[in-house]
């Protein structure tokens, strides 16, 4: 479904991603793990069209999206729930969700999706007219996920969904992601919490300083001595 071939991304002189190749098959939940600064966020930005790659190519459903605009990529079916949530702080919960379906024109279906989101996230329903910036971190994460779902994506990109959340919200977030996949949406998830990510994924990639260090099933990576000592210690 998604394929990166020798992806290279630079910020000025800094090369953040150095020839990364990976594949996400339809229906899978794929994890991308690695330390701080490994280039995970950069990779997701490149996929979403926020950062034009300096080399390599990105393919989605057989279409070359390497240089496509963020809008085009979203309309093809890739949505992202960005690192640090990034809700629009001065817009209400409802307005944030409206932004999530900015490109859609099917009014009735949109109304139905609003109902569904509010059913699934009752806390958001209670706060629908509240500015998103006044929500708690966990609620903002729910909103960011709901907002991304409002575009009805085929592939969801999650960037560190558990970052900075209280333990009960961490679990809740992983449950939601598992659910999203169970409902037929493919997921590519970047996560610092390597153990949780490896346990829930079908396939995982380990990124170290911009290059692929390892790949395999979640179980294979959990058993790998290097992964055990560097990422799962303690």
């Amino acid at each position, binding site marked *: 479904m998604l394929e990166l071939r020798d992806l290279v991304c630079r910020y000025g002189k800094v090369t953040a991603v150095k020839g990364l190749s990976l594949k996400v098959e339809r229906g899978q939940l794929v994890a991308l793990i690695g330390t701080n600064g490994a280039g995970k966020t950069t990779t997701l*930005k490149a996929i*979403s*069209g*926020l950062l034009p790659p300096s080399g390599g190519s990105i393919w989605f459903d057989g279409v070359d999206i390497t240089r496509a*605009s*963020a*809008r085009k990529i*979203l*309309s093809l079916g890739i*949505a*992202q729930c*960005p690192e640090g949530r*990034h809700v*629009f*702080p*001065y*817009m209400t919960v409802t*307005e944030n969700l*409206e*932004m*999530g379906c*900015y*490109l859609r024109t099917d009014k009735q279906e949109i109304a139905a999706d609003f109902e569904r989101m509010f059913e699934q996230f009752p806390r958001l329903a209670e706060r629908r007219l509240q*500015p998103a910036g006044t929500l708690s971190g966990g609620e903002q994460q729910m909103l960011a996920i709901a*907002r991304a779902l409002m*575009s009805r994506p085929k592939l969801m990109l999650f960037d560190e969904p558990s970052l900075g959340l209280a333990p009960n919200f961490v679990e809740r977030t992983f449950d939601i992601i598992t659910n999203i996949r169970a409902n037929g949406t493919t997921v590519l998830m970047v996560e610092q919490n390597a153990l949780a990510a490896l346990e829930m994924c079908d396939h995982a990639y380990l990124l170290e300083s911009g290059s692929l260090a390892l790949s395999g099933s979640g179980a294979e990576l959990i058993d790998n001595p290097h992964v055990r000592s560097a990422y799962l210690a303690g």
Partner: protein
Amino acid sequence: MDQLLQHLLNATILGGTYALLGIGLTLIFGIMRVVNFTHGELYAFGAYCMYALVMPLGLNFFMALVVAMALGALLGATIELLLLSRLRGADIDTTMLVMIGAWIALQNAEQLAWTGVALSINNPFPSEPLIVGPLSVSWNRVYVFFVALLLILGTYYLINRTHLGKAMRATFQDRDTAALMGIRIDRIHTATFALGSALAAAAGALLGPVFVVAPTMGDLAAAKAFAIVILGGLGNIKGATLGGFILAFVEELGAGYISSGYRDAMGFLLIILILLFRPTGLFAQKERVG
């Protein structure tokens, strides 16, 4: 007492156009982070369009306002596409210098096109003022006030309720995330600059027939617009609206009771005081746009 009431009425009426002028400028700053030095020239441009459309071309006075606004939006969009779109990500100093250049170029172009002679525009209103008790006001000013009010309300509606307005606010609050939503950031920039320019042109087209039209009219308007925006807090639309009215009241009462020769200085005195004591503006708040 009657005199005071008259001053307050004059101030309210003037405040409407000041608010319009301020909103256009603050919108562009809030969303685009561009200090728009061409704002005053768009004001002058609006007034000149009004002149050209009504006087030599004989277009209907009310239609001419609509056309002048549309032309203002067009000129704004052109400036944005020609100059600002190439400067995305450039630092604010570079953008400021380019905008100062555009300001000078526009002013001279206006002078070239319409000469330096002040021009006046006929209006279709009765020459007798409207008299209510002890108060009197020209019909043209009443018209200006209500149109300004309508445009201000329209702008609020646009920013807060429409698809485009929400996309503008989202872009201002979080650019990259707005792009993730499928919002075309470039178009939002162009639309915002065009909207701000149309509002400036509207203010010029409204006030042109009240005063006279001259190539330097934009300078004072720009200075006042900046004063209003500073009063209200940069990027704050509600603040700019209130700032417009406050500036008008200070000017009108200052001219009426202190010295009429210092009318235009009153506002700047106020700005100096505010910058000394409340540098973030009178109505500083976290939310800037909307």
